[in-house]
């Protein structure tokens, strides 16, 4: 209740100054004088002439009534300036208000109607109102970062406005930054070592009261000394809380069954009573599953859901339980979409491969580029290979001089030798042979040199050091058998590349077994050895098929080497290659970030005008940076976020609190800052009752009435 205007307003000062001046003016301009008959004004006139010389001062000096009135008004003015003292034991005249606006401050405790944050603002506002005119204060809001909302000022209006600007966030809590900001003036940095007697402080220390309004949900601060700060901790909220929180929620595709998605959640009870409720899982807003849970206080439980989907999806897990903090009752996660991959095919001509890569389903997730082996001599290829622009390069019956910085699939050929420095020269010479072979293949001749070399390395590489080096030999791909007809024996069905494949009906006219470097996994075994194998290479994967799909006869005409292209498993195999070797399918779920965290998403450079949209929110267009990276900073609100380009989903990520420290909302009664322990105090202050203002108003009214009555009596 503030019916009287604030004296910070200059207009109020002016009005107050006019009151005594007005009384004096009215006093002299008073028109009603009692007429009195005198025998003669002869002597009076002489007296008045004398009085006129110093009449103003004499009237003021001799008029007790006027003096009393002026005194009363003076007292009233003084009283309106709020003289007095605070009812509390105030320390310094400088106060720093630290207000916690992290997620846990959204808690609405039992028997409370407002959140902890609102209560903290109310308490700070009361402190500001109780400040005297010479007191100064600053306001710092802190969550996982600190923000000085208002620097030191004696203007209570500015402090009030700054406090209004502080808003609650969904962030976690870290008080250290706020403490450093508060200590800026109280503990000025020394210019040199403390032990240095010649040291001169750069500024005088200005001690201040530090008032921390928080629920204590932050880590103990050890590397901080309060110094000249006299800290008080005002614990917001109670220790009797009721909160069930989801502290983790993620999805993962089954590596064996890509359509099977497993969702894992961790739910923890931070309250003091056992809670029984249900957790509901929805996908893209549709109910999917629910599970009943019962958690003891302080305990946690895990939930897992199994979902069948191959597409991208947004999952939401909701606890059907009303507690003190709502933000941790909902968790979000997403299933990443299949990526659109870029495939470079180097082939002298392979119709089954081309047809298999251009089916309706593969066309959705890949972009193909077909080039003859001569393309490998161009700068364009070298740049593509060096930069790793393509997700997969398929070398069909040919081999590059140097392995590209991406995944590869060799069909009927071997990757070039890569091992030690000494083997580099030999590899180049071998590459020449390979190049010649490719040239021969390009010109219609059969690619025999590699095969021969593989059959007899010593013969083909007479001057090649790698062949002489057993270590280098083991680290390179090589043929393990001479060319012959092939009969398949075993298939590694658990491998994603081999899923859904039935290969035993294949006919392979000519093929050789392959051996790879350490770590090579045999995918298909045949009587000649591993006919299909995959091996890692510096973060990439190389897969080698031991037979050609289309071979060339001595005339250079194409001949089919296998009937695989006529089998149903051929396009399925190619699809698996695209998904798992080219990386179109991501086995893990969409990543989750904290609220306010900057999210970096790497997009394909082909995507233009991407927009980010929280499900339920409005899209925001973002210009991608170099190499197609996006930096998304508007991530304050938890939820599933979609990165789209022309309504096509490009990426997914989720924003979740997932902070047990924030979910543990029981107010901490004691916090430790440096070597000091601060025990919670009552944040309320002995606020003065402003009844004296009404008393003053009554006094002013009394004076006015007295003046009026006196004037009438005289009249």
């Amino acid at each position, binding site marked *: 209740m503030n019916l009287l205007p604030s004296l910070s307003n200059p207009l109020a000062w002016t009005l107050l100054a006019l009151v005594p001046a007005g009384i004096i003016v009215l006093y002299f301009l*008073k028109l*009603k*004088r*009692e*007429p*009195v*008959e*005198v*025998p*003669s*004004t*002869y*002597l*009076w*006139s*002489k*007296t*008045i002439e*004398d*009085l006129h010389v110093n009449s103003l001062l*004499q*009237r003021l*000096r*001799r*008029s007790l009534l006027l003096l009393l009135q002026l005194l009363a008004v003076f007292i009233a003015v003084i009283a309106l300036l709020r003289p007095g003292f605070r009812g509390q034991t105030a320390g310094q005249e400088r106060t720093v208000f630290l207000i916690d606006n992290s997620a846990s401050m959204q808690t609405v405790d039992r028997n409370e109607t407002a959140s902890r944050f609102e209560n903290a603002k109310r308490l700070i506002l009361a402190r500001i109102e109780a400040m005297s005119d010479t007191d100064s204060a600053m306001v710092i809001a802190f969550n996982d970062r600190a923000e000085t909302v208002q620097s030191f000022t004696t203007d209570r209006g500015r402090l009030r406005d700054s406090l209004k600007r502080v808003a609650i966030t969904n962030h976690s809590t870290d008080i250290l930054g706020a403490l450093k900001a508060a200590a800026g003036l109280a503990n000025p940095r020394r210019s040199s070592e403390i032990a240095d007697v010649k040291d001169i402080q750069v500024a005088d220390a200005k001690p201040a009261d530090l008032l921390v309004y928080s629920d204590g949900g932050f880590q103990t601060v050890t590397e901080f000394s309060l110094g000249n700060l006299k800290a008080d901790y005002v614990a917001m909220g109670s220790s009797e809380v009721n909160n069930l929180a989801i502290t983790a929620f993620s999805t993962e595709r089954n590596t064996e069954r890509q359509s099977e998605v497993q969702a894992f959640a961790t739910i923890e009870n931070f309250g003091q009573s056992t809670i029984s409720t249900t957790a509901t899982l929805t996908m893209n807003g549709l109910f999917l599953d629910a599970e009943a849970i019962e958690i003891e206080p302080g305990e946690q439980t895990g939930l897992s859901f199994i979902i069948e989907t191959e597409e991208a999806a947004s999952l939401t897990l909701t606890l059907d339980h009303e507690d003190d903090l709502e933000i941790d009752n909902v968790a979000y996660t997403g299933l990443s979409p299949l990526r659109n991959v870029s495939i470079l095919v180097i082939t002298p001509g392979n119709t089954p491969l081309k047809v298999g890569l251009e089916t309706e389903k593969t066309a959705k997730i890949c972009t193909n580029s077909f080039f003859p082996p001569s393309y490998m001599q161009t700068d364009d290829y070298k740049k593509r290979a060096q930069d790793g622009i393509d997700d997969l390069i398929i070398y069909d019956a040919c081999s590059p001089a140097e392995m590209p910085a991406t995944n590869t699939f060799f069909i009927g050929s071997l990757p070039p030798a890569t091992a030690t420095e000494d083997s580099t020269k030999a590899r180049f010479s071998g590459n020449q042979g390979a190049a010649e072979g490719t040239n021969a293949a390009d010109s219609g001749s059969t690619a025999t040199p590699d095969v021969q070399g593989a059959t007899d390395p010593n013969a083909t590489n007479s001057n090649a050091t790698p062949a002489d080096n057993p270590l280098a030999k083991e680290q390179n791909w090589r043929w393990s058998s001479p060319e012959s007809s092939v009969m398949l024996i075993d298939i590694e069905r658990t491998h994603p590349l081999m899923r859904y494949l039935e290969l035993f009906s294949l006919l392979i006219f000519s093929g050789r077994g392959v051996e790879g470097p350490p770590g090579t996994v045999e995918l298909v075994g045949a009587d000649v050895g591993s006919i299909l194998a995959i091996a890692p290479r510096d973060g990439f994967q190389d897969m080698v098929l031991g037979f050609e799909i289309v071979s060339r006869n001595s005339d250079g005409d194409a001949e089919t080497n296998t009937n695989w292209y006529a089998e149903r498993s051929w396009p399925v195999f190619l699809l698996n290659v695209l998904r798992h070797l080219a990386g179109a399918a991501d086995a893990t779920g969409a990543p989750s970030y904290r609220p306010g965290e900057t999210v970096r998403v790497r997009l394909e450079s082909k995507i233009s005008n991407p927009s980010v949209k929280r499900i339920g929110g409005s899209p925001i267009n973002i210009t991608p940076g170099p190499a197609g990276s996006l930096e998304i900073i508007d991530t304050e609100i938890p939820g599933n976020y979609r990165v789209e380009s022309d309504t096509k989903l490009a990426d997914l990520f989720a924003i979740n609190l997932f902070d047990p420290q924030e979910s543990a909302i029981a107010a901490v009664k004691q916090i430790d800052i440096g070597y000091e322990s601060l025990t919670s105090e009552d944040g309320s202050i002995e606020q003065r009752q402003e009844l004296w203002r009404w008393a003053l108003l009554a006094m002013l009214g009394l004076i006015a009435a007295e003046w009026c009555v006196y004037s009438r009596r*005289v009249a």
Partner: protein
Amino acid sequence: MSNRQETPLLSPSLLGRLERMELVSRKVFRGRMKGERKSKRKGQSVEFHDFRNYVPGDDLRLIDWNLYARLDQLFLKLFQEEEDLHFYALIDASESMNFGTPTKLHVAKQLAAALGYVGLCRADRVSVQALGPMGRQAPVLRGRASLWKMLNYLDLVESGHNVSLFDGVKDFSLRNSGTGVAVLISDLMDKQGYESALRMLIGRRMDVFVMHVLSPEEIDPPIRGDRRLIDVEDGDSAEITLNNYALQKYQETVSSFIGSTKTFCAKRSIAYVPVRTETPVETIVTKYLRERGVVR
């Protein structure tokens, strides 16, 4: 303000005491009729004055035969003549005199009646008159029996004729050419000043007495606060805030006025008699006037 005469002008006891008094004239005037006062004339009183040589035609009854026997020369023996005294009591009947309790005018009339009666008892030529138009009706009285005429005239005198002192005295002087004792009974509060009036009386070779009548309300006004003072004579007004300081200044002004009047009168051999209206007339006449030599 006006207080009609609660008390008679002259009480019987005062009359008895007045009969034993006589007016004192500091000057010897030539009278008009035979009286009891020394005159500048040589006459037939019993008081010897001088001798002179006989010249033919002188009254033989005045020859001092004893001297003729001794010196064989004729000398006339001269005696002091005794004549009457002209006594004028001039009453200021302006509106300002109608003030106080009793009013200054009433006190003035009492004083005039008392002094007039003293003159009547001593066979003086007494004329009690108000300044202004009423003065023309004033009778000239002689003898104790004329007391009632005098009192009747005084009863008729009322305030309201706002004639300045100078004009009133001038009118009186034009009507009375003789000399004598003139008693001016006034509050002297004339915005044109009283000095010219007194000078005129002195110029007429009068033995002038000034009885300065002031009421206690004039010396110490009982009014306070913010007032508008209205002059009862000319309606002039003056606004003043009456506080202790202003009153002190006023009283200083009154004292200064009285002091300057005294000085003025002393310089001109005018007997100045301050009169406070609260003082009984008996006291004034029998004590103050006797002390100041107005009567004896």
